[in-house]
């Protein structure tokens, strides 16, 4: 009872603190403090309810149990992370995004192909591509190659659509200016249109970070060597060792957020001129 009462009390107090902080003028400090406090309150509530209501750890382990599990099984988590994220997701991400950008540049000179590719690409991007996973696992075997292939297929179309759209982002005025400089096609592409396309390309890159991790993990459900995050999740669920599953999820969440944050950071450096990057 004390556990639940304490947790609810903490929740109420932190919510009051948050409403108070939200009324202050917006600053960097409150922008970080408010969501952090909210996340902390969620964790405390979770811990309190699990401990207070004696919830079976098979159903929902407490955050502290998960933390202990993470600390005690670091080598396994690292091996899984390396297999799934570095070998599967990352290589597929680089190949898929690279291929999509190259394809977009190749069809760039043909409005006919673009008019055909865009609707088809948009349609394919809305399809449940993840269903291709069993087929690709069959084609490329159980190791990381098949995971990378799934990731390539998943990220290709969102990336293609974004890049093609981005290459049209420069305004007529800017293109005219470049033409008055007597720029050749490659010069115009490199100096004006690719830089102008960067916000769109990074939009696609950011969407693809999540897709890449999902693709690599789900593909492992269809067969994998005896390591990898997806493999671990599906086998530990079968053994009802939920604390290990949550540990993997924590790693996946951390890796996903870090990957996203990393791409967003590069975006800030590359597209510093774009209005959405302005501070202050």
């Amino acid at each position, binding site marked *: 009872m004390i556990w639940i009462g304490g947790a609810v009390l903490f929740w109420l107090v932190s919510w009051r603190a948050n409403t108070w902080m939200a009324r202050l003028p917006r600053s960097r400090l409150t922008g970080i403090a408010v969501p952090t406090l909210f996340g902390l309150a969620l964790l405390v509530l979770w811990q309190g309810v699990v401990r207070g209501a004696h919830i079976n750890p098979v159903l929902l382990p407490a955050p502290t149990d998960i933390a202990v599990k993470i600390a005690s099984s670091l080598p396994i988590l690292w091996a899984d992370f390396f297999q799934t994220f570095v070998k599967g997701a990352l290589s597929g991400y680089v190949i898929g995004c690279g291929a999509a950008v190259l394809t977009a540049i190749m069809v760039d000179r043909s409005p006919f192909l673009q008019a055909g590719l865009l609707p088809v690409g948009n349609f394919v991007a809305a399809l449940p591509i*993840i*269903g291709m996973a069993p087929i690709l696992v069959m084609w490329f075997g159980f190791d990381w190659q098949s995971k990378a292939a799934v990731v390539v297929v998943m990220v290709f179309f969102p990336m293609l659509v974004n890049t093609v759209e981005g290459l049209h982002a420069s305004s007529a005025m800017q293109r005219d200016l470049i033409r008055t400089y007597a720029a050749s096609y490659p010069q115009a592409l490199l100096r004006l249109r690719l830089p102008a396309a960067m916000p769109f390309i990074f939009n696609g890159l950011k969407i693809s970070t999540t897709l890449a991790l999902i693709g690599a993990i789900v593909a492992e459900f269809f*067969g994998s060597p005896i390591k990898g995050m997806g493999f671990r999740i599906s086998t530990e669920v079968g053994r009802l060792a939920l604390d290990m599953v949550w540990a993997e999820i924590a790693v996946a969440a951390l890796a996903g957020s870090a990957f996203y944050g990393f791409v967003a950071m590069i975006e800030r450096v590359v597209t510093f001129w774009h209005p959405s990057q302005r501070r202050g």
Partner: protein
Amino acid sequence: MNRKHSRVLPVLTVVLAIFVLWYAGAVALNAKWAEDKATRANITLSFPQLVADTWSQDKPKLPTPHQVAREIWKTTGAMALRGRTFSKRSLIFHSWITLSTTVLGFVMGAGLGILLAVGIVHSRAMDMSVMPWIIASQTVPILAIAPMVVVVLNAVGISGLLPKAVISMYLSFFPIVVGMVKGLRSPDRMQLDQMRTWYASKSQTFWKLRLPGSMPYLFTSLKIAMAAALVGAIVAELPINQNGGLGARMLVGSYYGQTIQIWSALITAAVLAAVLVGFIGFVQGATLKRMGMAQ
């Protein structure tokens, strides 16, 4: 009208190119099996024979479109004609299960998303504390824990459609929150001031200005959410051997190397996605036209 005409030809060309590549790929990928078979039988295949063989194998690496189409017809139309529409072997049965999960999850996700968006627009504290976590929640590969959610909810005694629908809900609420927050904030200063000069209460402003103003945003995000809900439903069907669904069909197909079966489930899922998103597009067109907002 003119714009539409100019797009039909390129799209058809691309689709045609995909079919050509597909058939060529089938020859390339299935050729090894055909040649092995021929060497065992001590015959040499001429090229037309090779092509004919690669396009008609039982368990090809890549089935051809006409094989997939025949399989789909065999498990939908042909079964319906024999009066066994909802037999466990028919794709209509499996599609129905996936469809009901998707729609249930989508409705729950839309409800949750709209409620959260209303809260975020009206409370600054909620905006500042919840919004970053909603965005962070999407960098988590939630699909990866879909099996766990299904297993755990099954263990608590919640079984059937609901656990799978929860996954669909989780995937579909996010685009709706983001779209609705943008939509509910789309009325500009001038319009809000106008409401104030009419002495409108907060709820009147919401119902008469903010909500109608958000409709175009809502429908755009509903389309994305619907596609996401379908993906969620399919992945949620993967983990344990459940009694059906397109995802289960794919898993069984991959266990037994029934590539044609996987492809037919995949194509059916694609058709389902197109129909669902098209339906929302239709409702969008009708609604916005009635509201005088059609572009």
